[in-house]
């Protein structure tokens, strides 16, 4: 009975839940790593990894069963397929660790963070699975004092650090006291970044952002009968948030239920004119010339009557949202198991928000799950964004997924030392400062609106310059170097043979 694997999978899964159990990730890998160091065979190690992965991802992606998305069996089929592949990824990690442990357990433990991060990174990419959820680093996002290191090394560096702490706990009994102390000190170093001395520059400029959370159920959205009542609710909530002047009003993903044409939408512009405030809202854009599919976008309605698209969803969720874009997807679509209709959009530049009596404010906008792709937020930061707005709609995927996405938003704030306003249809809608702290929030699940000020971002942190590629490459290269050493038996090993 692979108790250790099951225990690891369960603990990691609990840590990933939207509950205050995140710090369990620091010990979640320990049982599995210990068992892998003395694995009887590599196939068994792979099996143990798969089992741990099945629990970790199976529970961690349990929000799928809350979802009211797609049609028929589409989501269930997607869940089973994704779970199999993700579990296999976990199995590959376990296999590699066990293989390296045959030569040297300490080297295997040293390689573990790089191996894990390499797999975590790969599964997030379009060329593999495009599944960027349940990364270890997110488990700690609700404890911002623990994850300020993300401003140096980002999400993947954070995940590597977590695995390294687990590995160190396994390794510690084999080390002398001085070595053990040194290792502990080294691994605790990132925590020092929570000290106020490392706080980001306090920018004097602030932006007041009004957020509207209409809490409209998925079955009542984008149907003709509800178009007018839904619009009325948005306007009522907006009016109540504008008791004092604000710089920007934000509505959630696809809140504007009129199809956006090639020339924008004059009515949306008229609303911004009436509010006398720029308005960002999610909207579905009709296929442009040469495009075969719709785009899930964010639109800025300006006071001067323009409605430019300021963000397109770059990574629509496969199966239920993304238009079939490959042979397998088209096959599934023909079988009624793929319901998506949106094409992949282009990553955009920050919008420039004019302000009376102040310099224009560059603002990055991401649509929903795009916030889970750290490179997109980083690119906006590098392009000058001083505030990030993420618009979301989790009415169909449920409160669990919304809570996970809220964690994601907090980590993006820390990585980029940039305030984030997350505006979600069913909440939680959050105003997050550049240290990942929630400054204000709207209660999830109910219609609400409010306006709050956030200090604009100051200087960009090291992560913005380093990026995920460099961090992942460094971690994975370390693992590869260790793996390469596996092919050169040590003198002691040769003599033992």
């Amino acid at each position: 009975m692979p108790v250790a694997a099951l225990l690891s999978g369960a603990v990691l899964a609990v840590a990933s839940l939207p509950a205050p159990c995140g710090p369990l990730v620091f010990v979640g890998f320990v049982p599995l790593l210990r068992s892998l160091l003395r694995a009887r065979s590599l196939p068994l190690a792979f099996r143990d990894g798969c089992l741990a992965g099945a629990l970790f991802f199976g529970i961690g992606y349990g929000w799928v069963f809350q979802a009211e998305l797609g049609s028929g069996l589409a989501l269930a089929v997607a869940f089973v397929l994704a779970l199999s592949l993700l579990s296999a990824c976990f199995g590959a990690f376990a296999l590699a660790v066990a293989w390296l442990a045959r030569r040297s357990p300490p080297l295997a433990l040293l390689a573990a963070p790089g191996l894990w991060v390499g797999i975590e990174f790969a599964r997030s990419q379009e060329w593999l699975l495009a599944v960027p959820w349940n990364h270890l680093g997110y488990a700690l996002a609700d404890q911002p004092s623990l994850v300020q290191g993300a401003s140096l090394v980002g999400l993947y560096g954070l995940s590597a650090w977590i695995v390294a702490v687990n590995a160190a706990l396994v390794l510690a009994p084999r080390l002398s006291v001085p070595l053990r102390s040194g290792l502990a000190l080294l691994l605790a170093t990132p925590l020092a970044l929570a000290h106020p001395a490392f706080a980001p520059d306090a920018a004097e400029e602030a932006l007041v952002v009004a957020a509207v959370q209409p809490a409209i159920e998925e079955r009542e959205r984008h149907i003709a009968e509800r178009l007018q009542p839904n619009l009325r609710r948005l306007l009522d909530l907006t009016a109540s948030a504008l008791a004092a002047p604000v710089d920007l009003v934000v509505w959630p993903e696809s809140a504007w239920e009129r199809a956006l044409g090639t020339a924008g939408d004059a009515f949306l512009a008229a609303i911004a004119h009436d509010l006398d405030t720029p308005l960002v809202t999610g909207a579905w854009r009709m296929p442009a010339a040469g495009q075969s599919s719709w785009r899930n976008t964010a639109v800025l309605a300006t006071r001067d009557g323009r409605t430019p698209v300021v963000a397109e969803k770059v990574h629509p969720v496969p199966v239920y949202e993304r238009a079939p874009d490959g042979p397998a997807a088209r096959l599934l679509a023909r079988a009624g198991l793929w319901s998506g209709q949106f094409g992949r959009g282009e990553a955009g530049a920050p919008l420039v928000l004019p302000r009376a009596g102040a310099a224009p404010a560059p603002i990055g906008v991401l649509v929903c799950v795009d916030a889970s792709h750290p490179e997109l937020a980083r690119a906006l930061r590098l392009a000058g964004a001083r505030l990030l707005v993420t618009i979301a709609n989790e009415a169909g995927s449920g409160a669990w997924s919304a809570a996970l996405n809220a964690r994601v938003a907090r980590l993006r704030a820390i990585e980029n030392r940039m305030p984030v306003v997350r505006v979600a249809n069913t909440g939680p809608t959050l105003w997050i400062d550049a240290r990942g702290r929630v400054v204000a929030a709207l209660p999830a699940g109910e219609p609400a609106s409010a306006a709050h000020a956030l200090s604009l971002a100051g200087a960009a942190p090291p992560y913005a310059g380093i990026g995920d590629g460099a961090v992942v490459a460094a971690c994975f290269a370390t693992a590869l170097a260790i793996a390469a050493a596996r092919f050169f038996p040590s003198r002691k090993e040769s003599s033992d043979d």
Partner: protein
Amino acid sequence: MTSFSRAFAAVVFSSLLAAPALAVDGFSMQQPDTSYYEQAARGEALAPEASMTTDGAAAGGLPSSLYVVDAAGGVTYRSLGDGAWQVDVAVARRPHERVDAVYDLVLALPLPVGSHSNAWRIEPRLGPSAKAKPIVYGGERVVLKRNVPLESAWLPVLVGASEGLPDLSRSGYAWTLWDAIVRYDASAGATLEAFGTFGYSADARVVAPDAENPDNAAYVITWIPTLEAVPPFAIRLDVVGGKE
């Protein structure tokens, strides 16, 4: 008509059936069988998906024609001397349209080319001039603000079109658009009326529009963008004679 237009038209139709509108034109206070929007939407089926016609998309959703009825009231241009002018817009008591929708209330008003003002706002009021009160509708004070972006987008589509606005290009006057987003208020009663004034300055050679010229009028337009294929309902207010 697109599936969406049909769908929304049917929704409006249904809601109007539940609360029948009163007279649609400005002169009769008797309750007719159907309102303009009821008639326009009649017979359309409900469709499940939202979309927009290609034409509408190309124009940003702006319609190119109006459904115009004459209404009591009028527009009066008064010269106050030294190039200062005041225009009074009055809508006599008329039936409440009872369109259960969020819409753009647009006033199309001719003003002299190159006129100036310190405040491009018209606040509709009600009651005797001395004691007139601002109109509160849908819980909010209605204020019509001049919408230059809407002028840029809509007037090229609307002016000179059949069933559109008259072309004023040789009159020394030009169309201006003023609007407010309005949410239907069922508690507003069976009738509505309002008046508003706007002060501006213009070149000393400017004269008031000729009341005998039928092109000279103002229009109060109820633009329901979600009812895309139905020309917006508009009431026409004649110029009733300028005063120097």
